[in-house]
């Protein structure tokens, strides 16, 4: 089914960027500047708002001519692409997004043609859906678990790993009682916030964020 892989919805939105030669720097460069400094951590709009597994913004300038025998073609506009893997219903997701991060989304989408602004959530949802493309091929890292379930699973994985390290070789009766305590404590912990469990990676593999 298009747009859907397991319980995950694959959202693709192409918003035309305003082409106005009198504006300097151009709207597409202004978007690039915002995106270059947009948080990829816990302050990201996609971390504040509920339901995003992964999201990516891309500014699409044009299609590139790769040489004969392909044909040289051009887009009519520059586009801002939003790709997002999300939980459940699209309307609910978009309303959650605009409610959580109105200023950040305005700063980005004000440079796009026909953007109605965040003051009217319904208009925002309609605008985004009018720019939506059908996602026909969708990769989701986890396609049968919701975001809270995934965050909980990561938390559990890490905690259990630590528990094993500290309890290897413990005498069975004590291990059982300590595991029971551990499991009860783990259950009572709040679900971690999105992006809060990301581990620091020392390796540079290229790209600005690293």
């Amino acid at each position, binding site marked *: 089914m298009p747009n859907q892989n397991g319980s995950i919805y694959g959202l693709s939105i192409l918003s035309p960027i305003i082409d106005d030669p009198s504006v300097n720097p151009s709207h597409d460069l202004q978007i690039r500047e915002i995106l270059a400094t947009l948080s990829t951590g816990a302050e990201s709009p996609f971390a504040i708002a509920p339901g995003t597994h992964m999201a990516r913004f891309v500014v699409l300038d044009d299609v590139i001519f790769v040489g004969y025998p392909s044909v040289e073609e051009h887009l009519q506009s520059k586009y801002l692409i939003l790709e997002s893997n999300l939980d459940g219903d699209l309307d609910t997701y978009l309303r959650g997004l605009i409610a959580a991060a109105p200023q950040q989304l305005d700063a980005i989408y004000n440079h796009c043609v026909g953007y109605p602004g965040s003051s009217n959530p319904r208009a925002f949802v309609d605008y985004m859906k009018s720019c939506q493309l059908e996602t026909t091929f969708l990769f989701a890292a986890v396609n049968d678990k919701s975001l809270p379930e995934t965050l909980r699973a990561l938390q559990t994985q890490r905690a259990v*790993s630590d528990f094993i*390290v500290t309890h*290897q*070789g413990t005498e069975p009766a004590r291990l059982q009682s300590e595991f029971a305590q551990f499991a009860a404590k783990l259950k009572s912990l709040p679900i971690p916030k999105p992006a809060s469990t990301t*581990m620091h990676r*020392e*390796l*540079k*593999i290229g790209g600005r964020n690293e």
Partner: protein
Amino acid sequence: MSKLNETDIQGFVLRGYNLPFARYVFLHFEDAARARKLIGSLLPLITTGQRWDNGKPQSTVNIAFTHRGLCALELPEATLLSFPVEFQQGMKHRAGILGDTGHNAPEQWDELWHHNRVHAWLGVNAQSPEALEARCAALRSLLTETSGATILASQDAAAVMENGKPTSREHFGYTDGFGNPDYLGISRSTQPGQGKLMPDGTWAPLATGELLLGYADEAGELPVSPLPYLLANNGSFMVYRKLHQNVATFRKYLNDLSTQYSGGKEKLAAKFIGRWRDGTPLELSPDHPAPSIVEDPNRNTNFTYGADPEGTSCPIGAHIRRTHPRDAFGFNGKLIDRRRITRRGLPYGPPALEDQPASDADDRGIIFMVLNASISRQFEFVQQQWIEYGNDARQGNDKDMLLGNHGGHGKFVIQGDTTETNPPFVCAHLPNFVELRGGDYFFLPSITALGMIAMGLVDPR
């Protein structure tokens, strides 16, 4: 089928000499004309890939250059700029990409590497210490006669001896040096498990262009090479890394953990690597070392991981399973054919026999050298993704148990089963067993290319 002119290729590229003594001499060129004259005088002495029909020579000589060295030789700008970027930058500049940080950071390296003065590497291998000294004395005279270069430093290395005979053991006690890849057109005593895995389960040589410039690689392309073609052809890139081994830390960690591991100390040591310390692959003999397998070239590298997907025989994160994954990543092993490297090297420092005390402060380790056609695609990928990261092996952020730059925070999971002597086990708080003490990226030219450099004939037009 590539047909190789073995007399035009430096012998060090084509085969491990299996000579137990070595000295690696690092040169600095003061003057391009004099340095070219030195290379001209060295040229007839360079050991080529020609077969040794009359037995091994007493000693061998090979030469390789850093990019700064080629600049000092005043190769044309257009040639210098055509080398792959990672080679131009050198290994120190690539520290962030390689994970050479913290204990392994360039500031911790030997003095030799601090000032970017290394221009060339002279590798001398010999059958005896006397032959090594004799050859080095002759080379020093040549340096003096031509005033072509100064010696910045020398690094001695030698096989660990046992009862007067060289062994292939390294200082942690593991038998090393199995499984360099086979390449098309390179004649050596080949054995199953050393090339690439074919769909029918047999092994075939890798494309020549994975090792040598100027030949098709596994993608059917020519490796990225400097201009002109004749300078690159029959050459290779070499990575030199001096890896200090913290033998005391290793022994203590192994001893401490083995008190908690019901499989016993030697099995735990085997799980780290994927081979028992005598070299027996865990995949072929999970419960005990088997000398008959180690001694059989048809068996000692002839295995895959397909029947052990859970890692109960050989842990998924074991060193040899990470660095030569064979079929472990699926797709009949196709994903790894462009990530293979050829290794050379010898231990350095005083041997540390198991029953003798050893300290981390002892100057002891292994000189690890890699030969490959593309440093970034082959060595750097293996170092970054398979040594310093675990995602391809589905081990998350876990690094290579033995070589990883853990800084005390590393973890290594030994998968197990329900038998008493093969329990699942987690090794935590991993320290750095191995620390980088220096090195660089080198270009090993062909004999023709050395002649062109010596005669000032390199012309990229």
